[in-house]
């Protein structure tokens, strides 16, 4: 079945440094939608950004990601981390042609320190 791998469980960064959270996925279907959801403490998880277009950069709220189907990756990046970026980040996959359910990765906690 479909799977999503976020290899880092915890990423700790000093404020101002660049952010990169890794996400790779596996699916047998060619049409893949990839998502990043963010879960701030004491809030509900919400969609950060999404893409289904190969090699096109998607941006939202200072974060960006590019879907690379050749390497099955959708890494989340930001040029300069802020303290307010501290949260739990989930990468998710929906591959049309399958059961169309959203498959989430294990999640990466981003901790930004002064």
């Amino acid at each position, binding site marked *: 079945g479909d799977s999503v791998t976020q290899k880092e469980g915890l990423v700790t960064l000093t404020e101002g440094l660049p952010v990169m959270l890794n996400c790779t996925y596996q699916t047998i279907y060619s049409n893949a939608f990839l998502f990043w959801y963010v879960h701030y403490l004491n809030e509900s*998880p919400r*969609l950060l950004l999404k893409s289904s277009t190969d090699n096109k950069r998607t941006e939202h709220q200072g974060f960006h990601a590019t879907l690379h189907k050749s390497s099955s990756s959708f890494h989340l990046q930001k040029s300069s981390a802020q303290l307010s970026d501290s949260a739990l980040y989930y990468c998710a996959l929906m591959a049309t042609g399958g059961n169309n359910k*959203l498959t989430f990765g294990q999640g990466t906690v981003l901790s930004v320190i002064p």
Partner: protein
Amino acid sequence: GGIITQTPKFLIGQEGQKLTLKCQQNFNHDTMYWYRQDSGKGLRLIYYSITENDLQKGDLSEGYDASREKKSSFSLTVTSAQKNEMAVFLCASSIGGPSAETLYFGSGTRLTVL
């Protein structure tokens, strides 16, 4: 905008007890979901429903029942709580069928079993 309300926010139960979690949405969304959130394991789908009175099993349905008696509400029952179990249960909804990609989440019910 709409909102998803989960009740209760905190639920403490005894081993073997049957426990019910409730979820209400006013988005008028067709599809509703129950996810379980465990540290290091991501979000795992328990049940989803694409319309009133519909139920579809997710990857983690064993040990749970669900009910969608109205379009706006979706309840989840833990059929027999496991000792020392701790987890957060997240309810979500989306506009269309399970192929619709953006999920809107509630703030969660935190379960502790003594």
